[in-house]
């Protein structure tokens, strides 16, 4: 902790207006009279004509200070025969809520101007929308499919697209009771597998080669620099590689050992979370969110239940809120312990730091298992509260005693030891300092979030910028570092572990004080029906800003659109920017410092 420099983010910005987004919207409407409010009940934001989008977005960024394009979402409005793109833009300086821009276009010929040349953070998100909705982004430099492969037929997130194992529109499927015959989906499919082909399509079996040729052209760009002309080599890393943190693939072009171009390829774990989520009832989505960022399932639960609680217009009781914060902060420690261990694994400190932190992680997982029933897939939060109260005992020790000992003794000792092991280590410093630099301007432009953003000197934390739950009552600092390299990302994560411990120390007395109080508002329900409308809720996940965009009709039991702003996915956009000019051996370290989880990248 000796070198830490903490900056209080809250209070930095002079608050002039009650709500900066409203002020900005009023200003925008003056400048662009064609803008109209989204007048659907319980929807927010403004609808912009497609040809004005660029001008509006640039005015918003350059003149009104809304410089952080957080999320780009595609929506299929099949009833109006329209497709919609929703942009959530925040202001780093002012904090607070978003300005929501919406573009509605014809479903048959959907073209929207691309924001990628101005906001590179939109790159992958626009490619994803092209992939899943078939909306063309005019001016996008590299509009290819991102999650599916190039030859794939159809745009699967459109409402009229059916999967091979399609059963019924909405869950619960009526066929499961009371006369449920066990008919498994593969028995109804004529190929016996989860596949379907376009009518009349006849394969020869030879015409398709897996996408190997696609990136060859990166290698043959002519080099204009003077000196010795060397051939460039294109190297494929992944999807099966020990240091890609899962099934992630990078196509790297090298000049000697220096990286000159990098293309991330993903989708190898694209398991259709959103498509399945739109068919699930609201409560059925909770266990699915566990499997997004599977290292921090409690945080994923939290973001999702907050979103649906807004739709339901309920609030959890006090005890539930405190337990939620406890769980989420423990999750942050678990996640950072894992991330640090693997970052060090990647730079060559093989196994040892990871195994030391792993012991503390296991002790927290023991607590999760006692509280929620599962080590990783907690499924612990419910709309308006929690599934269970805290357990009586954890590993034969009373719960509060266990938590106190964990937070006051075990974790600080372990962290001090870990810092002694790594933080001053010359080899670690040599590998991490000055590598993978990302400037503050670039971090914002690339929509980076979480430790990646804060290590570049941007003090932006959703817990402070737009407080949710009881975070406004807690005393903690936003960990910021200013060099923007891997070492600073490492330090930010170490600081955040200390801050989380600090938060938990403040939460524990509240847990003792609220002992025996209810943990649910109302009675537990399995068939919740929402008030309808649109909601975007974001939380500070260990990886960064995790957002849930949910829309539903009135009294609906299933969401209409269910989209996740996945921090790991969007943080990867800055990967190429950070890697160019470094040696290929640094690549895995840079990737490790972003801390991705493929379940969230590909969803």
């Amino acid at each position: 902790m000796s070198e830490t420099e903490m900056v209080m983010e809250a209070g930095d910005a002079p608050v002039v207006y009650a709500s900066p987004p409203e002020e900005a919207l009023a200003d925008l409407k003056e400048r662009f009279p064609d803008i109209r409010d989204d007048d659907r009940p319980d929807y927010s934001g403004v609808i912009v004509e497609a040809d004005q989008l660029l001008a509006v977005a640039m005015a918003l960024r350059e003149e009104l200070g809304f410089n952080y394009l957080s999320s780009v979402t595609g929506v299929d409005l099949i009833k109006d025969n329209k497709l919609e793109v929703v942009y959530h833009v925040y202001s780093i300086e002012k904090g607070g809520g978003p300005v929501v821009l919406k573009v509605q276009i014809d479903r048959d010929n959907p073209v929207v101007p691309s924001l990628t040349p101005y906001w590179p953070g939109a790159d992958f998100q626009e490619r994803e929308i092209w992939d899943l909705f078939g909306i063309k982004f005019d001016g996008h430099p590299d509009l290819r499919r991102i999650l599916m492969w190039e030859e794939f037929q159809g745009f699967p997130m459109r409402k009229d697209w059916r999967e091979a194992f399609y059963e019924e529109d909405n869950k619960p499927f009526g066929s499961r009771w009371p006369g449920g015959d066990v008919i498994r989906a593969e028995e109804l499919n004529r190929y016996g597998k989860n596949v379907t082909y376009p009518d009349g399509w006849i394969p020869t079996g030879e015409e398709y080669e897996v996408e190997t040729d696609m990136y060859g052209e990166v290698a043959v760009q002519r080099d204009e620099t003077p000196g010795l002309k060397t051939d460039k080599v294109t190297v494929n890393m992944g999807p099966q590689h020990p240091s890609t943190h899962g099934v992630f693939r990078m196509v790297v072009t090298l000049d000697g050992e220096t990286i000159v171009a990098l293309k991330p390829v993903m989708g190898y774990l694209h398991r259709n979370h959103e498509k399945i989520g739109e068919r699930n009832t609201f409560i059925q989505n909770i266990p699915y969110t566990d499997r997004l960022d599977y290292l921090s399932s409690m945080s994923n639960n939290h973001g999702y239940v907050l979103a649906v609680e807004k739709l339901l217009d309920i609030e959890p009781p006090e005890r539930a809120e405190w337990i939620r914060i406890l769980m989420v902060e423990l999750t942050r420690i678990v996640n950072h312990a894992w991330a640090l261990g693997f970052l060090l694994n990647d730079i060559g400190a093989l196994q040892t730091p990871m195994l030391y932190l792993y012991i503390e992680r296991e002790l927290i997982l023991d607590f999760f298992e006692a509280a929620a029933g599962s080590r990783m897939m907690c499924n612990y939060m419910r709309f308006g509260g929690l599934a269970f109260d805290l357990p009586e005992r954890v590993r034969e020790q009373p719960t509060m005693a266990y938590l106190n000992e964990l937070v006051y003794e075990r974790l600080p000792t372990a962290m001090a030891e870990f810092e002694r092991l790594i933080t001053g280590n010359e080899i670690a410093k040599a590998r991490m300092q000055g590598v993978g630099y990302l400037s503050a301007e670039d971090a914002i432009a690339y929509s980076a979030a979480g430790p990646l953003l804060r290590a570049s000197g941007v003090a932006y934390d959703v817990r402070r910028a737009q407080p949710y739950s009881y975070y406004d009552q807690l005393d903690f600092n936003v960990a910021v570092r200013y060099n923007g390299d891997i070492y600073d990302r490492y330090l930010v994560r170490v600081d955040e572990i200390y801050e989380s411990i600090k938060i938990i120390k403040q939460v524990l007395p509240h847990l003792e004080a609220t002992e025996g109080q209810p943990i649910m508002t109302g009675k537990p329900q399995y068939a919740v029906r929402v008030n309808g409308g649109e909601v975007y809720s974001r939380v500070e996940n260990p990886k960064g800003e995790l957002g849930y965009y949910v829309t539903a009709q009135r009294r609906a039991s299933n969401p209409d659109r269910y989209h996740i702003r996945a921090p790991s996915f969007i943080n990867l956009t800055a990967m190429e920017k950070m890697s160019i000019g470094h040696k290929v051996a640094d690549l895995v370290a840079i990737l490790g410092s972003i801390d991705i989880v493929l379940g969230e990248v590909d969803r």
Partner: protein
Amino acid sequence: MTADASIPALESDIAIPDDVKDNVFITNISKLLDPVYNWSRRNSVWPMVFGLACCAIEMICTASSRYDLARFGMEVFRATPRQSDLMIVSGTVTKKMVPTIIRLYNQMPEPRYVLSMGACANGGGPFKEGYNVVDGIDKFLPVDVYVPGCPPTPQALIHGLISLQEKIDQQSLATVPWYRKNGIGTEIVPIPVLGPDLVDIRQLDLIRAEAKKVTEAEAA
């Protein structure tokens, strides 16, 4: 693996005089060598570093200090398929990933084993209905052991690995497919291709027949 019928059961074939019964020991090469062969293989099963999804985290936990796969001789996780004996399919198998998995499997030297870990690898799991999800790795690869759970706890995975060791114990030099000349049981698995959807090369005839049916129905 059951005993081959071509190997005569020695005890019953050879009549042993009563007076030497306690002093002779009748065996064959296979019976002598099998225990040694199996013992050495079962205690040095090297898995591949091959994490797919959530289950991979539990697989790493299993290999870490609390559960410690080194006790089973399995701690040597190899990053290349060419040095590994066991593929732990740990997580959701997607259509985009399946060609890679098959390619890796084909690169593994024999004897090779596949352990399917978790509901997703077994049968698609909760993501079964998804458009990019393969409903079970056994649709493409021969699987030796299935470990249910979502995700299986480290102890459940170790139970699966012990089951695999038990399976290895049953094998016999004389009957294992990888020493046979006919090559049955050791064929290269054809790699599926990514067309408009995942195309299993072994199913081409079926796909053509179904396509023909559709065109005929349209014509009629």
